[in-house]
């Protein structure tokens, strides 16, 4: 398991809710988030960290995207 910090494009609602839209991966390409399946506070025991965890679907692949104190990372298996 690896912790990959990523650059995220997100939507900030008037109510202060943050919804990630896309992120820049290691290859420099921007990937759209097709669907957010779940959003909840969680700890990442595998790669270390804590924050709001987004269970996301990107090109049919399920990933965990974490927002840990304004830094975003992906758990890579």
């Amino acid at each position, binding site marked *: 398991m690896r912790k990959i910090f990523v650059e995220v494009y997100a939507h900030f609602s008037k109510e202060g809710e943050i919804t990630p839209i896309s992120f820049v991966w290691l290859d420099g390409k921007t990937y759209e988030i097709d669907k957010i399946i779940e959003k*909840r*506070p*969680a*700890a*990442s*025991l*595998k*790669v*270390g*960290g*804590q924050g709001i965890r987004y269970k996301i679907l990107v090109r049919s692949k399920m990933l965990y995207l974490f927002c840990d*104190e304004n830094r975003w990372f992906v758990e890579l298996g």
Partner: protein
Amino acid sequence: MGRVILHCDLNNFYASVECLYRPELRNKPVAVCGESELRHGIVLAKKQIAKSYGIQTGEVIWQALKKCPNLVILKPNFPLYIRFSKLAQRIYSEYTDLIEPFGIDECWLDVTQSTGILGSGRKIAYEIKERIKSELGLTVSVGVSFNKVFAKLGSDYKKPDAVTVITKENFKQIVWPLPAKDLLYVGSATEKKLSSRAIYTIGDIAKSSPEYLKRILGKWGEVLWIFANGLDTTPVIPPLFEDNIKGIGNSITLPRDLTSYEDAEYVIRMLSESVAQRLRQQCLKCFTIQVWIRDNSLFAITRQEKLQTPTFLAREIAQKAFEIFKKNWSFKSNIRSLGVRGLDLVCANSFYQLEFDSLKKFKLEQLEKTIDRIRKRFGHTSVLPAVLLTKPDLPCEIALHNKIHPVAFFK
């Protein structure tokens, strides 16, 4: 319906937070220690594995390393711990608004009113335990009981990641066989006094007469008897309803021993700057100045004196504190730690007897308030008394050294 009190204690808090962010250390003996260069080199928290080597909190680093040469020593990261403490409290607040913190990693919760909706104390405790684990990645021990003292005993009873329920029916089986030192407010001195009279367990305290305990320990004897018999009725008080502040103080363990009055004056001035600034922030003035001195053999004294008029001026606090210091310390041994405290606090705007030089004092107050504003904008070290630049081997500001201490049980 009886009270339902929970005591939640985050296990090995500092070390667990550190290991959460460094999974590679999870199966290694880890201890979070103060900075040895600044001579704060003691174990602040350790993981269970480090505990199995016999390492204890409060132990000096070299002693800990002797017991476990592979010990991984980490520097503390207080902002991160405060963040996790707040996150835990946010979870607790979903079960009750009666939350009383007891230090950074412990809280009492009065969930009496929530049990009708959320289920029994035991059910709430298990739910909190699971949420802390999944949302924060930490483990918590929860004690559930009908009073605060037994709830705390419950959280200490089984660790880590456990729930212990102490009821009116089972407390004699669970609590009474425990050693007397496990009871809140039984320190090593009290334990010695009790054991010399064949009082070894909490049950022995409970079965002694309160008059006898009072004769041995003073008024605390009676309090301990009440605690041991499960008769504690102390309420869970959220910080919002806390009594007025009793005193504002700062102390510091120095990077090197203080060997002269000149050294001491420097440190007193530095501490007084911080105390005065904090008094002004709270809009308070102090009537009494207290000085705390600890030498390099860890022998400590505390001395205090009253002022003519209350003050929040750094120079007045420093002047009085140094006066007290000179009267009470002759440098037969060198100083390791020093503290200054303002007591007998009054509202800064209350009336008091005018002095002949009131106008001068008023001007000085305006001056120090202006310094506060400059420091708020440009940082603490943007304005400093010139004397605080004369000793580069001693720190010139205290704010960074402020630590969080457990609050008192009795308010």
